Every structure is written in C-alpha cells, then in structure tokens.
C-alpha cells in the first residue's frame, strides 16, 4: 500500500496536496458566494459535501471541479484570484482522494465503446485483408484526437456524410487493384471460382470473428445479383466484397462477439494497428487467448513482427506530438532548408518511432527512452547529426552512438527538438513545456486570461533570449509556471530549431544551464537527461497512461489509473524491461475487460 501511495498524483514540480480541512477553507473563502445552498451555480453546492466520503461518492463532479480550479477557469475572472500553488494543492487533494478511493475497491473496467476503424486502421485492415500494397483510406478525412490524445479514441471517431461517400469510393479502388494483382488474388480468391467458398473464407477475416451461413448468404445474394445482370465472375465477386467492406461489421470495432475474438482484435489493433492474423483468430477460436500466458506470448509475437512499426509510428507520433511536424509545425524553408531534403525529413520523422520500436522489440530497459547509447538512423541523418556514418545506408538501422555523445534517447532527437521550436528559431518555453507535457505528464496550466504569451521575440533590445525570459519571470503572475517551464528548456539551447548542435547563437556563447524549482542545478543536455532519469517513475507513469489510453482507444477513468499504478509497479520490479510493460498492459483488467484480478 505504501508503495502505491508514492504513485499518487505526480509530485515533481507540484506542491503537496491539501488536507480536507485546508481544501474546505479554500472553498469557504473563494467559492461559497456562488456555490452554496439552493440555486448554487453550475449545480455545484459545496454545502452538500461535509466530509471526504461525500466527495468520493460524487467523483465525476469533483473531477470536474478539480480540473476547472487547476486550469484557472474557477474562480472566474473578476473574483479574487487564487494562487497557482493553492489551485494545484486543491486539485491535488481531490485527485489523490478520488484515486485512493477508486483503487480501494478493485477495478471494474468500463465497457469497450463501439467505434469505427480510424483512417490508419481502415487502411491497414483493407491492406491485410486483400493483400494489397495500396493506401485505400487515403481520401478519407483525417481523424481528430480525444481521450489521452490519440486518433483511435472512440469518443472522437465521429462520422460525417462524406465518410459514406469515401468508403464507397475506397472499396472500389481497393477491389479494382486487388482483382488485377495476381499476388492479391492468390491471397483472397483462394477458392476461385466458387463464390460461396471464397466468401466463407473471407468473411471471418473481414469481420474478425466467426460468421454463420445466414450472414454468408447475404453476400452471396450480392454475387448472384451481379451474375444475373450479366457481370463476369470477377466483377460479381468484387461486387460482393465491396458490400463486405461497407458493412458495419467490417468498419466498426464490435465487441459483441465472444470474449476471445474481441481480445484478438484488441491485441492486433493495439500492436499492429490492423486486423488479427490467422494465428490470433485460431487461438481465439480455441478459447486459448484469454489464458494470460498465451496472451503475453502473443503480445510479444506481435511486437516482434515488422507490422509493429504501425503501432510505433502512431503511438510515438502522437504521444510526443511528432506528427505535428510538417503539419501544424513547418520549419521555415529560408532558415532551415535542410529540412526539405526528403531523406533528412523522413529520417527525422521516423527516428523516434523506429527507436521506440527497437527498445520494445529487443526488450531493452525503458530507461533507454531517456538516454541510450544507440539510435536508429540513416546515413544522411547521422551526417546531419555530425556523427561518423560509414556503416550506414539510406535505410535507417540501429547505430551505436560514439562514446561520450550528447545524443541518445528521445529528448535529443531532431524531430523532438524541431517540433518544440518555432519555424525559424528555438524556444526554451516550448521545449520546457514539451518536457512537462510529453515526458512528465504535467502540462502547465494555461496563462491566466488577458496575460499574453511570454515575449520571446527578438526585439530592438540587445538582450539575450535568456535575459528576457528571466526578466519576465520577475513578474509573479508569470513566474509560477515559467519557473518550471523555462529552466527545463534552457538545457536544450545547444540545439538549433532543427536539432543540430551549436555552441553559439548570434555570436553569443550558449548558456545551457538551468535551475529547477526544487533547487536542482544542471548544465546541458547530458545532465538534463540525468535530471529526467531521476524522475523516471513519473516519466514511466505518464508513458503507461498514454499507452493504456492508446491500447484502449479511450480516455482513462479513475479506475484505469489504478491499473496504471499496478503496471508501473510491475515494470519497476522487473528492472524496467520493455516487454514487461507490454505484457502487463495486455494482462491488465481494463484491457482484458475482466473484473477483479
């Protein structure tokens, strides 16, 4: 139990939570006027909560209260302000209490919500079903993100009329290609020219579960209709399969089939971003997949398959915001023309995902994510990093960093450094914020209303950026957050806005030292990595939350957070081995959808 308490609410950089009495007193002095008695605003009547038990009983409401206070929405503008430290102590009290209460009585997972395949999953599923190297989902609209920040979150996978139109178009494009390609035909027209046999083999794969005769008959009817109007066998079977690709049984992740088949899909969409293969479906058919040992072994098998690149790209791209590079954040072609070299660009974009995949596949310690003696780079990227590259080719591969290199680990990868920069220059603020949010899982709250962004622009004043930032931190309104943000970002100032090493900027030597709010002083990226390694529990807790949110495709609940604690504890016990993270993840209660372990 003691161990679990240490995991409660991330503590680094955040003040210790209030006690019940302190929280009460904050409420009384700041909230009472609007939030008590009959007609309490927003349906929140604080007089209804005389003790902690009553708070725990309304966990959803109190989570909202905590968030609104933490983010500075409440008290609203115009009321006396509450300091950021107090806001955090208050929300810390709520989340700590709710967390402890949620974990105390065991984990009951919420149901797995129905969702459609997202664009990437659709593409991968069509590709594997028909064995075609075609991006069939190319014309579908991109999907937004919800929950823990991923585009596979059920809550934000909405449908618009344009989807129906595009699904129809995509099914035609895919089949048009598949029917002409002998390799593809051999994969899915196995029983040619027997339409029934072909569909009998195809449908269970397409729907990722067993199908009955009546279901097959429905698609045979499409085939027959095409035959009756005089279509060839090819056109007729293609027409029937178009129907399959438009069916909600294909387009949606449905969990109304047996437990094991649902598990097979959950596993394959997690680690491959696509449909389960024959082995998974076979094990599901034999009801073996729910055996934890089999489940773990299958997870590792999937992880070691090259298809896990899909997972690494989707997960890392969104966890670390790297997907924004080239989309929402485009380096300035005048300042950084090198980025527009296709090989450097793809090398940059792929490095974090391929490295993450390497750590996982090879069962390396997860601490390598923060600092590793190797990376996965191409020849050009290595030269871009100014490290010897004689063994490297165009295809990225694992590569040992020269001894004493400041590179290694996610933090000093070009893509990370570029996505946390402005198009034409670096920003310690953006980089500090990136570390707090992506690695430590403690995003700073937004600036209070009417306080504009910290001025970093190189103006007429001949000061350095660091001096200007320090000046702003003299302002107490800004200091609360920027004391946490800026000192982390300074450590990376030796990297330019594309992530290349530099010793000077505008003729001035670079000062890459930082003084953290807890008194830790450090200098440069190598020491910054040590600072983060000292906070590895917090980093892995954040990674685990993100990964579980991705695996489940939804935002996490208080009870999911208990599962996160258990997974992190197991990973720590096992010396941070990467495979343990994955096997504990798939064996967790929320993933298996089984109550009480």
């Amino acid at each position, binding site marked *: 139990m003691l161990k679990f308490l240490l995991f409660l609410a991330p503590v680094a950089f955040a003040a210790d939570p209030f006690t019940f009495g302190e929280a009460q007193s904050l409420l009384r002095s700041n909230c009472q006027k609007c939030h008590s008695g009959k007609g309490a605003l927003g349906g929140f009547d604080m007089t209804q909560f005389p003790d902690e038990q009553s708070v725990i009983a309304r966990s959803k409401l109190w989570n909202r209260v905590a*968030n609104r206070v933490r*983010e500075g929405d409440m008290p*609203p503008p115009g009321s006396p302000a509450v300091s950021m430290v107090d806001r955090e102590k208050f929300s810390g009290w709520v989340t700590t209490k709710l967390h402890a209460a949620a974990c105390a009585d065991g984990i009951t997972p919420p*149901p797995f919500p*129905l969702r*459609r395949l997202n664009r990437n999953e659709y593409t991968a599923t069509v590709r594997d079903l028909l064995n075609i190297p075609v991006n069939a989902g190319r*014309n579908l*609209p991109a999907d*937004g*993100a*919800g*929950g*823990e*920040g991923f585009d596979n979150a059920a*809550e*934000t996978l*909405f*449908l*618009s*009329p*344009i*989807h*129906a*139109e595009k699904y*129809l178009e995509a099914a035609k494009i895919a089949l048009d290609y598949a029917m002409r390609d002998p390799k593809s035909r051999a994969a899915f027209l196995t029983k040619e020219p027997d339409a029934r046999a072909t569909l009998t083999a195809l449908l269970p794969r397409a729907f990722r579960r067993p199908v009955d005769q009546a279901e097959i008959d*429905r698609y045979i*009817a*499409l085939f027959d209709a*095409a035959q009756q109007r005089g279509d060839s066998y090819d056109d007729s079977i293609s*027409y029937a399969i*178009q*129907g399959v690709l*438009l*069916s*909600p*049984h294909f387009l*949606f992740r*449905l969990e*109304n089939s047996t437990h094991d088949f649902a598990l097979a899909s959950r596993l394959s969409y997690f680690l491959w971003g696509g449909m389960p293969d024959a082995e998974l479906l076979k094990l599901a058919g034999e009801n073996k997949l729910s055996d934890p040992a089999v489940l773990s072994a299958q997870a590792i098998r999937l992880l070691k398959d090259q298809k896990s690149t899909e997972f690494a790209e989707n997960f890392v*791209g969104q966890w670390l915001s790297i*997907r*924004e590079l080239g*989309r*929402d954040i485009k380096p*300035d072609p005048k300042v950084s023309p090198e980025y527009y070299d296709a090989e450097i660009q793809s090398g940059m974009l792929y490095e974090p995902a391929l490295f993450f995949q390497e750590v996982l596949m090879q069962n390396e310690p997860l601490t390598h994510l923060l600092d590793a003696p190797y990376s996965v780079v191409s020849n050009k990227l290595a030269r871009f990093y100014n490290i010897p590259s004689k063994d490297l080719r165009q295809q990225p591969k694992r590569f040992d960093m020269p001894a004493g290199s400041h590179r290694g680990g996610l933090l000093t990868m070009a893509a990370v450094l570029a996505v946390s920069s*402005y*198009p*034409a220059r670096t920003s310690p603020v953006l980089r500090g914020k990136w570390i707090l*949010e992506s690695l430590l899982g403690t*995003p*700073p*709250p*937004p600036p209070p209303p*009417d306080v*504009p962004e910290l*001025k970093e*622009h190189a*103006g007429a004043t001949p000061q350095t950026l660091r001096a200007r930032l320090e000046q702003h931190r003299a302002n107490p309104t800004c200091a609360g957050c920027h004391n946490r943000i800026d000192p982390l970002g300074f450590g990376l100032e030796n990297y330019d806005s594309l992530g290349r090493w530099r010793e000077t900027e505008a003729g001035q030597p670079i000062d890459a030292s930082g003084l953290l709010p807890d008194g830790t002083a450090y200098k440069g990226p190598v020491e910054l990595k040590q600072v983060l390694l000292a906070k590895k529990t917090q980093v892995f807790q954040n990674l685990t939350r993100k990964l579980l949110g991705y695996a489940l495709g*939804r*935002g996490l609940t208080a009870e999911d957070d208990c599962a996160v604690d258990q997974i992190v504890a197991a990973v720590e016990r096992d010396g941070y081995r990467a495979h343990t993270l994955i096997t504990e993840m798939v064996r967790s209660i929320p993933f298996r959808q089984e109550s009480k372990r």
Partner: protein
Amino acid sequence: MKPLSRRTLLRGTGAALALPWFEAMAGKGLAAKPPIRMAALYMPNGVRPDMWTPAGEGRDFLLSPTLQPLQAFKNELIIGTNLWNQAAKGGDGHYVKMSGFLTCTTVTKTLGVDLNCNGISMDQVAAQRSGQNTPFASFELATSPVTTGVDRNVGYTRVYGSHIAWSGHSNPLAREINPRSVFERLLRATRPAGNVVKQDLQLLDLVLDDAKQLRSKLGTADQVRMDEYLSVVRSLEDRLQRSASPTQANWKPRVPLDLAARPEAQPKDFAEHVRLMLDMMALAFQTDSTRIATFMFNNEVSNQNFTFVDGVKGAHHSISHHMDDAEQMRQYQLINRWHIEQYAYLLSKLQAMCEGESNVLHNSMILLGAGFRDGNKHDPHNLPVVLAGRAGGRLNTGQHLIYGPDSPLSNLYVSMLDAFGTPVERFADSTGPARGVLA
C-alpha cells in the same frame, strides 16, 4: 441574358455532346430564377483591431487598411461592427471561439468524451432545410487536416479547433482538404446516373440492413454511434436515389463542369492551396452542386508560416500574440490583409461567373469572419465580420453597419437565413434580425 463566354462554351462542348441533358447551354436551365448561395469563410487567430474597422457609417464609409483589397466590391459589402458571440466569451482563447462561431453556443469543455457544441451551425440549419435541392447539402472545405492531439493546457480536444460546421450537437462535419477530391466529387455529381448508381444503391441497402440489425443488439451509448452510421449511409443513399430516379431527377448542373478546371492533387504551397479550395467552392456554386459551403483558411491556433508574404517574418499564431510591439503588429496586419485578398479573389471569381443578367456573386452571400478580434488578447468583443454579395437582391449591401456594443452575432445569422429562404424565428441567443441587413 448575357451569353456564356466563348471560353466556357468551348470547354463545355464536349461534355454537352456527350450529355444530352445539358440543355442548360441553350439557356433553358439558366432561365429559371438563380438559386441563392451562402458561404462562411473562417480566419484563425483574430485580426489587428485598429486596422480593421472602416471609418464612417452607413453608405458613407472608407475601407480600413486591412479591408482595402475589397475596394472593388465596396458596394457589395455589409460590414458589421460591434457584433459578438456572447456564448463564446469565456472558455479558452481559441477552441470555444472557433467551434462556436457559426453555432453561437458554448461548446462543452472536454478532451473528447461528451464532445458537444450544444447547437447546430447556421449553415447546417440552412442545409437541413434546403439541402435536398442539390446533390450535396453542403460543402465543408479546409486546407489542413484536423489538428492532432488534445490540448491538455486548456483541457479541450483540438477537434474543436478544427470544425465550424456542426450538423448536430455532437456531429462536427469532416472537411475536405484535397482540391482534386472536391473536383472529382463535383464530376461524379454532375454526370448522369448510370447503372453503377443502381448497383451502389443495392450495396447500401444491404449495409443499412446490417446496421439496423446490429443496432438492436447494442447498448444505448453504442446505438448512438450506429445511428450516426445509419444516418450518413442514408444521406448517401438519398443522394444516389435522387440522381437515379427519372421522376426525381429535377436537378441539373446550371452550367457544365469546366473540365479544364481540374486542379493539381498536391498544391505547391499554402497560398495555392487556399486559392484552389476557393476555386472549387466557386465551381460548386456555379454548377449548383451545392448552395452552402464553409471554408476554414486554417485550424484555430494555426502557426502557419507566413514568410511567403512580403514583410512577414514568422508564423501566424506567434505573430498574433504581438504584445503591442509595433513590428509584430505590422506583420499581423499583413497576414490579415492577405486573408482579405483571398476573399477578394473568391468574390471576383464569383462575380465573373455570369448567371442570366446577373452573376453568382450577386446571388450569393459570402461571410468572412473570425471567432475573436485581437489575437493578442483573444478579445471576444466586436468580432471582425464582413458579408459580401446581395443574395439575389435581398441584402442591402454597400454599408458599414454599427450596432450597439455587444450585439448578438446570431442576429446577423437570422437575417442571412431569412435571405437564404430558410427563415428562423430565433437562432441561439438572437434577439431578432440584424438591423439594416435585409433590403
């Protein structure tokens, strides 16, 4: 009636020979009263406030520096001053203000669960009542895919910052960002329905049946998702049915689709991308493939690099936080002005599309605006809003209308919906039509 230009005629000839129904070329289709079109263009990141509002009032006004590119259209404009969207005054700086721009409601604060804009956008109010008159009820166009991730600093999913059109409380409409795809859609819609349509309908029939059966086995929350699916498949079915049925095929393209206008699939840069999307909107209006469109220059909080504009040295969102620095403000205004130039480009394009004795611009109303005024402060008061085109004569253009402080933006939407032929008694927090807008 003005004849079609020789160029259009030549381009259209091939199609007209192939497709006998293009009697429109002979003037038959054009004789009918031209339809009214409506569009809304959204600019992210607000505007420099002191360079936006025209001097003077009513018909006697001078365009501001930022609106200067609209000089040629001065008599076609209605510029509204002091309008705001009260429901979006709180929340965060960007997401609430963009996603509520056309709904005039407050979106629910969420990272995803309970995604809700608590209203329907005004374009969709119109689309739901008149959309059956054209192949597409509405077009949602943009240049950037939905922004990735959720914004944990402020606690909103970025889905909110990427959508202005909402067909239902939890139904943002996905946007098309590829100009070539828009063109292909126009091409399919303006072609006569062949056997393929009948076959497609048979597929959809089966699919709908699957979905209905499935729905009965689902829990309440999941049923909502299946209903969404049923509804989007039905909307496609409905469109295909209308195009295939000889008795219902009362829609014809007003002019043949200009095949030479087929755009590149990959625009070479952002500026070209914007123009191509606006071209597609103009074509859709000209052919009458849809009468309602929204276009987002970019997603809210966009940090689009604007160094392609002379005198601008940085990215949009960063510059919008100008901190009252003279140099930053100068660049901010240049970016605003660039957006107005693109708007003027669309207006001139529509104006050049003859339609009987008038032109498509005359028969349209094209709104341009932002969800807040000064980007530096995310100021929700006195939104930058311009309307262009006369809606076939229903709008009293050529005016700068100054309302009382904090007048509802929704009043303008009430007037627009009236002019469009889909009047509503109320829209969100409206208190009546906006004074002086209707002729």
